[in-house]
């Protein structure tokens, strides 16, 4: 027989426990006074204070009291319920009670950490504790609902984080959908030349992983695709992915690039996005040599077989004006299809990993550095492409005028640590600036100046890397660059003057250079805001996706079943992105391998005998969980659809809808409790 049943008619016996949390609570709240006060309240049988309630001895104390003192309610005043409610529900259950006979009082995050008057904080703790003491007698035993979990996983973003998470999940036999916005996976890492601190070539370490993704039987790779709709919840997300037309049938294209070679444009003419516009491509092109999938794409904006300009629905109209030499070249493969349309695919997955990455800061927002005005001002990412052997200059470090620079200035913290742009440190810029300085010295005889605010090189082997590179003979100037302007004495060559204060010598420096490299910081992607809405996530004030807890749940989000990997959560380098991707995959696993998800039983139900059939509640439910029974003239809530917001409960004029865990009577008791008079 259920232990609950036997106790149904017993008087309420509450055990109350107030936690010191070391000194976190006890320094601001007189925990002994709180325990003493609560002991005087009705139904309270035990009232204790203890150093760490969440520790094993603390939890065992609760269990022991439940057994020995025949407690049937437990209240713990400690940290936020979002942190330890689960822990104490577990302890309550281990003691032999229904876990929902437990109530938590937040006296750390909402009290001891935010208040400065010990007396007032103690009184507040008493009031909050009293609210819980008055609330728990109304608690009912509830059951956690178990819903089966779909083992498939969706990964959004095909950069190094998404790639690593996808391979990890797929190797363990899970079906993975990897959705990438661009025509190829690889992300920013594919654009880098070499990586710090090991100086191994980025593509050499990345391309095998990209190829694995492309050929893995468990990975469905959808590039040039975007998530447009997300419904459902953990274990059972319904996701719609829009596959944009690339005008090439993926299954038929072999990646031979005959179409590219035979295009009516004999020479590449259009700016190449992968090379940041520094190189040129044709209307039909391969995103880059190692692209995965190795499939060409046609740009309808410039292809002669399309009419110029987009239709209002975003599609393009075929003009049929071109000789279509590409189709001829493709021949029997018949992979080119100008009539291709965007296609929506619906999938069901149990978990989602967000790996949508970052964008680099646009230095046009710091006009004093002259980016976009002076041709010899580059961003660091552009320099990566220039230096890269497969880049637009085939690895020769030459400027837009074709000349090799004799002197190069690298400006740190562009769009980082700056009140006027972004306040955060982007974490990778110091190190990639040092790497670029090393690469410039390797490629040319140029003199290199690094202008930095502070040299930040944390992490394994990073300081060693800094020391090694710094000895290679570059200038390190401690000072933020104030201005970049053309050399008034030499207007013809495009030479620039970099002005900065050397804060170590207190001198204003004006250094003539041929090339300026801006070490741009990392920013949230512009579409992060839309994605946040789509996936029901939170963003920090800077716009990065917000993790559930900065230390204890760094890859989880507030939406169960959605995890974060890589730079979409904040700036990080490649090792950290990969580590986080692995962590996100492991978190997803722990959900999937359990086989089911537990759902909070905070759903609502209708007391049929009280329902007047007014139908007020029905249009309020965003999940259409409420239906009306025409025969009985009563409303009915489908528990499987109810998410437990309680909006209908608040609206019911006859008070005939009850929300489990948040019953009217429970809330009224809390209101009464927080306002009850306290001892003076």
């Amino acid at each position, binding site marked *: 027989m259920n232990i609950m049943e036997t106790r149904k008619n017993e008087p309420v016996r509450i055990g109350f426990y107030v936690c010191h949390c070391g000194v976190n609570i006890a320094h601001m709240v007189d925990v002994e006074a709180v325990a003493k006060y609560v002991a005087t309240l009705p139904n309270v049988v035990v009232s204790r204070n203890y150093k760490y309630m969440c520790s094993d001895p603390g939890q065992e104390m609760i269990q022991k009291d439940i057994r020995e003192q025949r407690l049937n309610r437990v209240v713990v005043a400690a940290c*936020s*319920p*979002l942190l330890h409610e689960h822990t104490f529900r577990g302890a309550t259950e281990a003691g032999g009670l229904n876990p929902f006979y437990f109530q938590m009082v*937040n006296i*750390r*995050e*909402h*009290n001891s*950490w*935010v*208040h*400065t*008057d010990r*007396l*007032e*904080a103690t*009184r*507040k703790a008493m*009031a*909050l504790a009293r*609210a819980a003491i008055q609330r728990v007698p109304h608690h009912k035993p509830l059951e956690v609902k178990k819903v089966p979990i779909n083992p498939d996983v969706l990964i959004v973003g095909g950069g190094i984080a998404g790639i690593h998470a996808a391979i990890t999940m797929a190797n363990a036999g899970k079906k993975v959908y990897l959705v990438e916005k661009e025509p190829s996976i690889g992300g920013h890492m594919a654009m880098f030349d070499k990586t710090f601190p090991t100086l191994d070539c980025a593509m050499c370490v990345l391309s095998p992983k990209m190829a694995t993704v492309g050929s893995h039987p468990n990975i469905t790779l959808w590039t040039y695709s975007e998530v447009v709709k997300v419904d459902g919840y953990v274990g059972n997300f319904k996701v719609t992915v829009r596959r944009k037309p690339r005008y090439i049938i993926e299954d038929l294209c072999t990646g031979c690039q005959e179409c590219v070679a035979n295009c009516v444009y004999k020479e590449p003419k259009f700016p190449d996005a992968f090379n940041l516009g520094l190189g040129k491509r044709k209307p039909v092109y391969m995103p880059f040599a190692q692209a995965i999938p190795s499939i060409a794409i046609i740009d309808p904006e410039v292809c002669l077989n399309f009419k110029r300009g987009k239709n209002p629905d975003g599609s393009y109209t075929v003009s049929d004006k071109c000789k279509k030499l590409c189709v001829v070249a493709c021949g029997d493969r018949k992979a080119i299809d100008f009539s291709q349309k965007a296609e929506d695919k619906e999938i069901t997955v149990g978990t989602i990993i967000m790996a949508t990455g970052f964008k680099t800061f646009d230095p046009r927002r710091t006009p004093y550095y002259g980016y976009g005005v002076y041709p010899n001002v580059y961003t660091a990412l552009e320099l990566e492409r220039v230096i890269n052997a497969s880049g637009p200059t085939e690895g020769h470090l030459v400027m837009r005028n074709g000349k090799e620079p004799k002197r190069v200035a690298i400006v740190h913290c562009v769009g980082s640590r700056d009140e006027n742009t972004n306040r955060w440190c982007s974490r990778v810029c110091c190190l990639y600036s040092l790497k670029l300085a090393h690469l410039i010295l390797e490629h040319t005889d140029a003199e290199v100046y690094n202008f930095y605010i502070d040299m930040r090189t944390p992490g394994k082997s990073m300081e060693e890397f800094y020391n090694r590179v710094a000895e290679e003979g570059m200038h390190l100037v401690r000072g933020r660059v104030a201005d970049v302007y053309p050399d008034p004495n030499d207007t013809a060559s495009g030479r620039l003057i970099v002005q900065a204060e050397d804060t170590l010598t207190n001198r204003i420096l004006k250094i003539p250079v041929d090339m300026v490299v801006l070490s741009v910081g990392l920013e949230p992607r512009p579409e992060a805001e839309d994605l946040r*809405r789509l996936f*029901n996530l*939170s*963003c*920090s*004030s800077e716009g990065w996706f*917000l993790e559930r807890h*900065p230390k204890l749940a760094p890859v989880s989000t*507030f939406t169960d079943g959605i995890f974060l990997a890589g730079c979409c959560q904040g700036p990080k380098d490649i090792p950290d992105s990969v580590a986080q991707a692995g962590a996100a995959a492991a978190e997803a696993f722990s959900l999937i391998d359990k086989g089911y998800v537990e759902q909070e039983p*905070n759903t609502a139900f209708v007391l049929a005998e009280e329902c007047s059939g007014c139908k007020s509640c029905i249009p*309020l439910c*965003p*999940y259409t969980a409420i239906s009306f029974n025409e025969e009985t003239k009563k409303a009915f809530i489908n528990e499987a659809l109810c*998410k*437990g*917001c*309680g*909006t209908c*409960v*608040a*609206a019911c004029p006859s008070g005939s809808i009850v*929300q489990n865990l*948040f019953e*009217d009577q429970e*809330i*009224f008791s*809390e*209101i*009464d409790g*927080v*306002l009850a*008079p306290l001892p*003076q």
Partner: protein
Amino acid sequence: MSDSTNKTPDGNWTPRIVAFFCNWCTYTAADLAGVSRMKYASNIRVIRLMCSGRVDPQFVVDAFAKGADGVLIGGCHPNDCHYVEGNYKCLRRYQMLKRMIADMGIEPDRLRLEWISAAEGEKVRRVVNEMVETVKQLGPLGIPAKFEQWDKEMNALAEHVAASQGAGAPGSSGQNKPQTAQTAHV
């Protein structure tokens, strides 16, 4: 319920503010304010609900009736509600409540609704401090004391009626007796 105004041990009045915070945005923001060790006034008593849409207008009225000097509701920003649109439902009720409490003689400024996202710990600090300042300016509301006063008046009136009716029509006074103030509010 006789303690209608909240007095600190040194005898000064300090407001009591009941807050209803949604679990996903504002409650989490208040947690963030805690983790960030921001300091704000201790007059606030937070009651956690899953959604601001769960805030029954009766909760607000009940809080005032039981001695709150102010009520603060916190929910997710428009378009960001964890439950799609519970915050809009809350907004409607809030606008109705604003007018309703004014009719009851409660200054509308004693009720405030704020959209505070999980990232806005700083906003929790600011809003709570502003709210406490506003309510301090308004002074104690003291509805329970008023109830007592009204009860006394009603009892006096009932006695007066009973006495005058007792003189005119004896026997009817017994029926009138239950109509004392005890039934006026619960």
